[in-house]
């Protein structure tokens, strides 16, 4: 039992990792008034991924003063279409969800991650109780009373609570001695942005193909972000195409509903996997974002889940601090596990199932999926339930209150 807390002053909270979830968690935690140290090197955001921010994510970003800084750079998603493009014997009927059915102005807002991060960075720099160590963490050493965080440049601090938002290869997760179950899905997501000749009318369209979904999500003006999931060899072939050819391939995949497409900027590929840690918290360390869950990019659940991690954690910590508690205590860790565990597990399962049924050539699965989507599509109350639960699961709040 080594305890390194003696040599450096103990901070209440440290957040490790400067992606969108790390920044959002640091801002939300700092808004409790308690001192928060963010350990993350500022790096220019390189890829072109976008995020469809749904329901509660917008409310949360609004609460922490971020949404006002980037709302005008996002595109509203008012209609979501799911089209069965599997070419199979039994096809699911087209499903069309409209936000008006559930009395909302939009399902969500699509924004380029780099713009969201710029807004988060700006807000973070405004927070008086937020200190930044502009460096990567090189060592995380849990102790009885505090966790010792060592940056690459040698700077150190001790924190009662460490929030690990350090992604798939989380150092925090390793330090907390939490095992992770990983499954490669044998699929790759190709992402790029396009401009197109026909208006998208605020409609996101998801084509379900035998090799995976291909989604066109509106961006401001006549632009869309594309997430195209396919087998790795196919993704590599598409990725190697010239801009003009890739644009034509995308137009073909979209059945020309958005007209001719021209590819903007670079394209990136991401091998798909599902990662589930055995626990979400241990040894004064809690995991959030991709350190806590990696899922395929279907239904825009990944980052939305990460923002819920940040939001729930900030709420738990605020309650703890208001009663003079230790933010890294077992009470807070157990509360986090309770509030996030069920949400993460059920979503990971649902996304996995949806993805598997799309790529499965096992025939009985096809009618089941066709019937499932058909039922959701044709029965009003079911549709509305599916939509609302997709935005922000209703049982979450009940769970939080049960604490």
């Amino acid at each position, binding site marked *: 039992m080594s305890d390194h*807390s003696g040599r450096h002053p*103990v901070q209440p909270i440290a957040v490790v990792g400067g992606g969108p979830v790390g920044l959002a968690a640091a801002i939300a935690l700092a808004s409790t*008034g*308690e001192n928060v140290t963010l350990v993350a090197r500022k790096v220019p955001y390189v890829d072109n991924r976008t995020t469809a921010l749904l329901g509660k994510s917008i409310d949360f970003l609004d609460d922490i003063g971020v949404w006002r800084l980037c709302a005008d750079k996002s595109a509203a998603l008012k209609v979501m279409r799911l089209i069965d493009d599997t070419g199979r014997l039994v096809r699911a009927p087209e499903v069309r969800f409209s936000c008006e059915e559930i009395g909302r102005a939009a399902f969500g807002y699509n924004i380029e991650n780099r713009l969201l991060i710029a807004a988060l960075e700006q807000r973070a720099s405004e927070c008086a109780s937020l200190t930044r160590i502009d460096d990567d963490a090189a060592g995380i050493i849990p102790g009885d*009373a505090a966790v010792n965080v060592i940056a690459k440049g040698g700077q150190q601090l001790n924190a009662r609570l460490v929030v690990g938002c350090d992604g798939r290869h989380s150092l925090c997760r390793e330090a907390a001695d939490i095992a992770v179950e990983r499954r490669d899905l044998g699929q790759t997501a190709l992402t790029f942005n396009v401009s197109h000749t026909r208006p998208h009318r605020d409609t996101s369209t998801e084509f379900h193909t035998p090799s995976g979904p291909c989604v066109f999500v509106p961006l401001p003006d006549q632009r869309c972000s594309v997430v195209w999931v396919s087998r790795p060899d196919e993704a590599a072939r598409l990725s190697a195409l010239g801009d003009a050819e890739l644009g034509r391939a995308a137009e073909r995949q979209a059945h020309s509903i958005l007209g001719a497409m021209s590819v903007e900027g670079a394209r990136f590929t991401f091998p798909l996997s599902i990662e589930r840690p055995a626990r979400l918290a241990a040894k004064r360390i809690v995991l959030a974002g991709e350190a806590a869950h990696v899922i395929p990019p279907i239904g825009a659940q990944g980052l939305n889940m990460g923002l819920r991690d940040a939001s729930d954690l900030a709420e738990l910590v605020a309650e703890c601090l208001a*009663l*003079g*508690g230790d933010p890294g205590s077992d009470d807070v860790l*157990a509360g986090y596990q309770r509030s996030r565990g069920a949400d993460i597990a059920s979503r990971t399962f649902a996304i996995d199932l949806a993805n598997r049924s799309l790529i499965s050539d096992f025939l009985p699965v096809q009618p089941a999926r066709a019937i499932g989507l058909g039922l959701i599509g044709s029965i009003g109350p079911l549709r509305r339930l599916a939509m609302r639960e997709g935005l922000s699961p209703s049982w979450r709040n009940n769970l939080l209150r049960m604490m």
Partner: protein
Amino acid sequence: MSSSATTVDPAEVARFSRLSAEWWDPAGKMAPLHKINPLRLTYIRDAACRKFDRSARSLGCLSGLRILDIGCGAGLLCEPLTRLGAQVVGVDPSESNIAAAKVHAAKSELLIDYRCTTIEEMNRHERFDIVLAMEVVEHVTDVGAFLDRCAAMTKPSGFMTVSTINRTLKSFALAIVGAEYVLRWLPRGTHQWSKFVTPDELARHLERNRFGITDQAGVVYSPFADRWSVASDVDVNYMLIAEAV
């Protein structure tokens, strides 16, 4: 490594570390206390914020207040109250409790004045903004004399918080038969029903010291939710605030 001139017995230190860990384990022997602790803290904090005109939502809402916690155990109330800004004196007649409290406070890096003593032995001129007698009056031999001392050490501008168990048929069934025999939350013999104190008895003792009860709340357990909450039912566990009138 650097133990050249110390009289500290490592075996003793280990014993108090174990005892402190037992007290502070939310799932351990003191689990019932951990469960009601948030309620007690909220009650004390909110009463203090009302009385001293502070905002309960601001960190350090108790800053500058001197608090005496009588029967502090290993510091389950002292530590959070200190983090909220108060200067806390914790007293307990048990030497091992005080040692366990000190071990934990050192780990938490909190400055708390722990003393192995009783209120009767304390300097009678010390004064506090808040005097806490949480779960102690049912264990003292002379409730009247005990409350006299508590009242004397409370500043005229301050208040006293008392929590205890009522002497009713229901409390006999729940606190003794239920908690000690059926659920085994507490060791048998922890409580003697005859020593339980009714709110009226407390009121009489306090009145003699020109203190009036300004708030009273029941602490009730709902077995299905396994959760404690504050309610108006004071038949079993209850807390009250007394102020100089």
